[in-house]
């Protein structure tokens, strides 16, 4: 068989011989096409939302007296009917969300600005701690990034209203996906994939809480490509493990019947155990040209927490996609597992109160949590690094990547 060998030079030569392709239109034509769009002044984005808000307030004032009186009578029957209509709950909340979104848009802009303002006096943090959860309900969602090479979990803090995370879960998916789509250019995170599923909760016979994954019969998980099946499984496995309520299992149901086939495996799966200990590490992801940092799961599962920490000092790489290390190469430390629940990390290199060191310590704490540790003590030459106190026993954080919405 004939073989030809190509070397880089030849290739480069041919590449530079590729012809330039010319636009055959004349400049006047092009200018005409664009001039309309350039000259049209964009209305400031806040006008529409604030007009809507004003209109809503006026309507509320006009309607409230009559509404209040009729509401009292109807309240009891209303409650019953919303309970009955649980299945269509998604649509109902959709309306509520729509309303929220209008004010959301202008809120978004304010949010961004306030984040910048507070940066001066508050040190950055990449995790959510127990004390952040006062009067809040934590919702966590796992999403893919970089062409679904990696996964991360993002967190929303919502006002506590007596409902559990799973009871609120569906309501916030459209909102989350809206934010992720809008900020894709800066954040690089894909949307939460399972937006077609309705999540509910139950207690099983042992009294432990389980998540019911209700799959509509129009969706056929058996026909998933391997990539889709991967996203599906990973999303279910990681999304609920950070929640405060201890859900032990995710049970799959199609039209109320348990068991699904995921991808072309031929295997029927009834449930996933939601294990808290994933034995994963955390790496840093920032979209090119952006400075928004996310802690992202490692690809590898590690045998020990030491091994994970060691790996977190270098890049995590898959093809063209790269996650940056979370622990600086020059940070040296000794890790001591006092028992299965408590970890001591003695940092022998000098510490600094910098974003890089905050990220390193917080990524270590999250990783320790993935290995089942509940408390952690850092030893080092500073009193504190960001929010992380040195020399005291700390609870491991609850979840990574708080999203302001």
């Amino acid at each position, binding site marked *: 068989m004939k073989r030809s060998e*190509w070397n880089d030079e030849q*290739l480069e030569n041919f590449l530079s011989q590729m012809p*330039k*392709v*010319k*636009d055959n239109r004349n*400049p006047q034509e092009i200018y005409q096409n664009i001039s309309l769009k350039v000259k049209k002044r964009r209305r400031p984005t806040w006008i529409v939302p604030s007009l809507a808000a004003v209109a809503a307030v006026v309507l509320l004032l006009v309607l409230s007296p009559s509404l209040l009186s009729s509401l009292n009578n109807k309240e009891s029957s209303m409650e019953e009917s919303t309970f009955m209509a649980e299945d269509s709950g998604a649509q109902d909340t959709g309306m509520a969300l729509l309303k929220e979104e209008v004010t959301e848009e202008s809120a978004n802009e304010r949010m961004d600005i306030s984040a910048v303002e507070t940066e001066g006096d508050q040190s950055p943090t990449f995790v959510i701690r127990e004390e952040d959860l006062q009067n809040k309900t934590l919702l966590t969602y796992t999403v893919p990034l970089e062409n679904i090479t990696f996964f991360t979990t993002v967190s929303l803090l919502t006002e506590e209203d007596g409902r559990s995370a799973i009871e609120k879960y569906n309501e916030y998916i459209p909102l989350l996906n809206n934010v992720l789509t809008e900020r894709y250019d800066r954040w690089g995170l894909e949307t939460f994939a399972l937006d077609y599923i309705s999540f509910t909760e139950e207690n099983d016979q042992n009294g432990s809480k389980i998540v019911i994954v209700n799959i509509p019969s129009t969706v056929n998980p058996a026909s998933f490509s391997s990539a*889709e099946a991967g996203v599906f499984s990973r999303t279910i496995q990681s999304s609920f493990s950070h929640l405060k309520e201890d859900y032990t299992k995710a049970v799959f149901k199609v039209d109320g019947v348990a068991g699904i086939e995921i991808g072309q495996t031929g295997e029927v799966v009834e449930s996933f155990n939601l294990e808290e200990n994933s034995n994963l590490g955390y790496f840093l992801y920032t979209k090119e040209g952006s400075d928004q940092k996310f802690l992202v799961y490692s690809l590898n599962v590690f045998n020990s927490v030491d091994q994970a920490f060691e790996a977190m000092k270098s890049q995590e790489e898959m093809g063209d996609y790269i996650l940056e290390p979370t622990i600086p190469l020059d940070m040296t430390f000794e890790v001591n597992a006092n028992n299965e629940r408590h970890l001591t990390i003695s940092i022998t290199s000098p510490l600094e109160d910098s974003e890089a060191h905050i990220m390193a310590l917080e990524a270590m704490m999250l990783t320790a949590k993935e290995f089942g540790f509940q408390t952690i003590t850092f030893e080092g030459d500073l009193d504190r690094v960001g929010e992380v106190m040195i020399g005291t026993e700390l609870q491991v954080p609850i979840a990574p990547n708080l999203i302001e919405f």
Partner: protein
Amino acid sequence: MDAVFQRLYEKYHHDVFSFLFYMVKNREQAEDLVQEVYIRVLKSYDRFEGKSSEKTWLFSIARHVAIDSFRKQKGWKQRIMESFDWNKQQVQDFAPLPEEIAVQNEQIQMLYKCLDKCTMDQRLVLVLRYIQSLSIAETAQSLGWTESKVKTTQHRALKILKGYMEELTVKEGTVDEKVRVER
């Protein structure tokens, strides 16, 4: 006509158009996209700080426009599906070559087809480095990357091209002699 537009048109229009064309491989789409580039450029021209050269600034905007258009075309779910759909890829191989390419020699035509096998990042680097003949530094500036990332991506891209070119050459068996003569 706007003076800024006229100046930019004269200096860079064909480069930017050519760049977009090689990214999307479709004349009509490239025509639309080049207009989008002007719209974005003219809207933000007063904010251009001169930190980078005008040319790399234009390319960086063109790159965003191209990427946005890919994103609009397909959500990530379709992107996955497509990578599994072998029939579709083959059809693409036989899509008619644009006139400018069709008149070139076989190697150029093959290279043009093989560009499809590279990832978007790799194609960006190849087009900027060789077809637009930007330097490594200029390419890095246009893409907002480090120079070392440009170099590694370029290296990987050439490797992939090489692989596919060899495969095609063996399959077609015709180009062999020419290659040797030219050496």
